[in-house]
């Protein structure tokens, strides 16, 4: 799928469940061919299950400062 836009969301330092809530709200309003780039302070394993269940693909990259960058888009 081609991505037309990239939205960014930084949830570093927020307590559970705020990072999860904010990501899900951002995804709910994400245009079909856009992607969401999330920066988060820990690897959110439970989020991956939810993304898969809801038809999203994701790509996680650990960053040098210990946080993670996750690019989320609709599955092809």
């Amino acid at each position: 799928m081609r991505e037309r836009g990239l939205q960014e969301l930084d949830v570093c330092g927020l307590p559970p469940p705020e990072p999860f809530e904010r990501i899900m709200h951002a995804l709910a309003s994400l245009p079909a061919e856009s992607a969401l780039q999330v920066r988060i302070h820990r690897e959110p394993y439970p989020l991956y299950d939810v993304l898969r269940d809801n038809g999203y693909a994701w790509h996680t990259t650990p960053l040098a400062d210990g946080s993670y960058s996750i690019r989320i888009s609709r599955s092809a």
Partner: protein
Amino acid sequence: MKTVPLNTDQAPPISVPLRFFAVAPLFLILAALVLLSDSDNPFADPHMPALLAATHCITLGFMATVMVGAMQQILPVVIGSPMPASRLTARFVFLSLISGALLLPAGFALGQPLLLNFAWPLLLLAFLGFIVASLLSLARSPAHNATRTAILLSLLALGAAVVPGILLAYGYATGTLSPDAGRLAAAHVALMLGGWVLLLIVGVSYQVVPMFQLTPSYPKWLTVALAPALFAALLLNVLLLLFQPDAAWLSVVAQSLFWMLCGCFAVATLVLQGRRRRRVADATLSFFRLGMAALLCAALLAIALPLLPVVDHLETLLAILFLLGFAMSVMHGMLYKIVPFLVWFHLFRGGVKSGVPNMKEIIPEPWMWRHLWLHRATLLAALCAPWWGAAARLTALGFLLQGLLLAYALFAAISVYRRTLARLEQTQPNPIA
């Protein structure tokens, strides 16, 4: 930069951890009833059957049940790797652990060898199944962090602790306790509490304290070194216990080393909690801080013990500080954080939905505060109990009320989950699927 693998298996259904948590308070009530059934003060003699039975209600029935249940959730969330065949594993471990945890204290309290003979094979199966499933989960984990190392070491300690535990239960059941039973019992207690309980709490704290309590992370050097150092000090202590060399000073040094490491963990955690970003009162945080303060007191007492004049019951005091003050406080705090999160997460996981309660509404916070005060009072009574019989009764009453209160809170959370799920299924399709 490195790209991590993308696939994870499904997290376990909510029923997997919740069944363990829901049953655990029952064992606090049973511990209370066992203590109340004894006309003497059970705390005055650590070898009294009633104290042995009540202790196993708490350590096996309450603590091990909570820890085994929590592990089924922690492994997928923290290291990205659930237990294999999570439902089947949970059913098998649950049935054997709960049956064994009921039969073993009953065997001690009633003096019935037959019950002990049923208990030890069930407990052996439960822990064997749990350890194998957990080790497989660790082996498949994409994460290689300090929490994984601490969990691995705690499982090794559990495996090592089960062996003397089974030998002792078999010895009690068949009347064939060896003359070395005292040393075996000491090794069993050291490995269970200083290994399985402490190392699991240490490893989970590395994640839970910064995540839920909004503190800075533990220093990297501490997370890398602490759990292996604690494990090495514990092994040294256990070897000295079992083989008892002539040089008594060696045991004093080894024990001091272990307790200094415990003190380091408690101080590091208290310092981090003092630097938390959101300075609002939180019952779960207060449970955790009480636990760390008690661990620090236990460490100071243990280090001072060889220097103090011989006073009866100081070792019982140490055990109470560690078990009720440290381990039970931390477990209550974690339960009150994990259960609302689990309920919220499993309701929310299908997507954005209106009508999912806020996490703070799942277990009302005033109940957590009441439990905290009750737990503080129970701990205070237990610390006086070895010298004062009335305090032993108050301790038992405290366990009874704590069991009832915790059961009420957990069933309230389960009830919120069921009601909300039924309403969501009736009213809302999944909006982002």
